[in-house]
């Protein structure tokens, strides 16, 4: 019968699984992509999936990208759903980005500074011309010259904001008016409450969708909550991650993380109690994530508007708006849930509109026939 066709079913789902598997593999005349290839050659995609998936594991991120046919939000979702099942053994000590093994470090506010500017493996000054030689595979293994003595002098690479901070020109970064910096919140364990403190805000931004943050950050540059930013420093490199097991009493090194850190230096007029100082916007992202780290730093600073006595007028300054809409796993789920069946609700809307139309055209006959059935629940409820 006709009505059967509109219902889903077990068979349909099984068939969809099978079709998806075939579609994902594609033309079997072409060798299958290995996870190792993705991990090694699609590094920026792996980085983005790790950042938005909130899990630092290059191999699993590469697997997720393969499984999701390169749909990076879908891949981040796979990683998140895996992450949530993992036990928590320990919390790490705060990572020390000042002692990062630098691969890239640029500052837009000083021409030169101790440690110098290190461009690293950046697309910045490439001309965006399609390299047709890559169509036929990479001919020779490309090699880069080693870092010069000055660039490899890692110990000289102080963070630029620390240099400014020494002069009292930049607000200290341990200023935390609302909570203890030693005990950061975790929005994956506790729901966000408002006003959300900066620790939770930064966590939300670090997990947030790159595109959403890019758009918001851009909006602050175009006048919707301007912050007058300068890129104080962007640094990319590996940091050591340490934990301090309670039974040991000292910290041990458990591995390295590749991180991108961006510190924006923003204007601030000061007040009667606080002398004029530059203020900070902070961005920190897993892997090579410069675009996201910069956007995050812009949005972080915009979200501090209220704390710094500025008017909250723009979307990027509205903590509730930004935090509730930055997560792409939440957003994609809810936007895409619209494709689930809604015919029960739509049916009640249909009857509602038909009833209202009948009332509007004042057709007593139609109005009468559109009343609920005589023994319906509605009548007895209304009579109560």
């Amino acid at each position, binding site marked *: 019968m006709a009505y059967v066709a509109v219902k*889903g079913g077990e068979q349909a789902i099984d068939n969809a699984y099978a079709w998806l598997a075939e579609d994902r593999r594609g033309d079997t005349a072409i060798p299958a992509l290995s996870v190792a290839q993705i991990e090694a050659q699609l590094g920026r995609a792996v980085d983005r999936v790790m950042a938005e998936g909130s899990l630092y594991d290059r191999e699993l991120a590469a697997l997720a990208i393969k499984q999701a046919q390169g749909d990076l939000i879908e891949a981040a979702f796979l990683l998140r759903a895996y992450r949530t099942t993992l036990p928590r053994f320990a919390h790490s000590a705060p990572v020390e980005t000042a002692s990062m093994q630098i691969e890239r470090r640029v500052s837009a506010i000083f021409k030169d500074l101790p440690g110098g500017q290190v461009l690293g493996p950046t697309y910045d000054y490439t001309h965006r011309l399609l390299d047709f030689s890559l169509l036929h595979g990479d001919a020779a293994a490309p090699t880069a010259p080693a870092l010069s003595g000055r660039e490899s002098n890692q110990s000289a690479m102080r963070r630029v904001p620390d240099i400014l901070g020494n002069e009292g020109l930049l607000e200290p970064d341990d200023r935390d008016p609302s909570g203890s910096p030693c005990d950061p919140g975790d929005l994956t364990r506790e729901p966000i409450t408002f006003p959300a403190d900066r620790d939770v805000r930064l966590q939300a931004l670090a997990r947030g969708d790159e595109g959403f943050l890019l758009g918001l950050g851009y909006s602050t540059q175009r006048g919707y909550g301007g912050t007058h930013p300068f890129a104080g420093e962007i640094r990319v490199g590996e940091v050591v991650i340490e934990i301090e097991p309670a039974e040991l009493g000292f910290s041990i090194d458990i591995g390295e993380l590749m991180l991108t850190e961006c510190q924006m230096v923003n204007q601030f007029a000061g007040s009667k109690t606080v002398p004029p100082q530059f203020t900070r916007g902070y961005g920190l992202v897993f892997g090579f994530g410069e675009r996201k780290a910069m956007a995050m730093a812009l949005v972080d600073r915009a979200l501090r508007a209220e704390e710094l006595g500025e008017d909250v007028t723009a979307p990027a300054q509205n903590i509730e708006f930004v935090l509730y809409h930055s997560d792409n796993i939440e957003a994609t789920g809810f936007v895409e849930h619209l494709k689930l069946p809604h015919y029960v*609700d739509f049916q009640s809307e*249909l009857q509602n509109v038909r009833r209202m139309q009948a009332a509007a055209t004042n057709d007593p006959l139609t109005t009468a026939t559109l009343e609920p059935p005589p023994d319906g*629940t509605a009548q007895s*409820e209304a009579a109560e």
Partner: protein
Amino acid sequence: MKGYNFAYLDEQTKRMIRRGLLKAVAIPGHQVPFGSREMPLPYGWGTGGIQVTASILGTDDVLKVIDQGADDTTNAVSIRRFFSLTAGVRTTTETVEATVIQTRHRIPEKPLREDQIIVYQVPTPEPLSKLEPSKVETRRMHGLADYGLMHVKLYEDISRFGQISISYDYPVMVNERYLTSPSPIPAFDNPKMDMMPALQLFGAGREKRLYAIPPWTRVKSLDFEDHPFRAINAPHPCGLCGATDSYLDEIVTDDHGGRLFVCSDTDHCSERRAAGHLGTEALRDAAE
């Protein structure tokens, strides 16, 4: 399922959710924030309901999952499979047989009993969200029981359309205190929530909220004395089982206006047909 705890979530998480549920039962209709976990199903597809079901499910429970009133809609199938796989509990399509019923958008036609629990999937737990998007503001309004905004909305509906235009997710007052979203069930189902013998639990995963209506609690759909609450249903009997008291789906049968109205509650409909009740469409099919 290998590598996963019974019903997917670890016991600590289930305990955290049950603590939230106890608070929710103690304050009927009040939204309790909880540490909603990321689930292997997408947000907006029942993650709240799944977490509630996972945390209350025992090995001897019998689970029924419906979406749009039907057991065989794709998302209901998917969620039922999830629990078959991760909890291995017995599942059923029969309302009478189930001890836990997870639902999206409907309440079964058959009255529920004291030994049953109904778990609603909730997309937007805040009934005021369409009028005031800020959760900071709506929490304050709930605290003060300041629901004037909603009454004004209903009044404006009447002045513009001559009637209240909300046809689903129709706001209710629970225990004469909290304005509550019944989830997007049709207003037709609202009266079933009032003084229901079964425990009603609500889970909103994306919005990270739980709430509950304990058994035998007053649930009143908002209305005015001169504009009493009226449920909406299609003015037809079910084409398959002839029921005149069940909520109906409208099926488009051809492209020149043909319609078939059938029970949205598939279990209710098949049970009636098994008992010999036949609608006009079923009689026509039998005659052919």
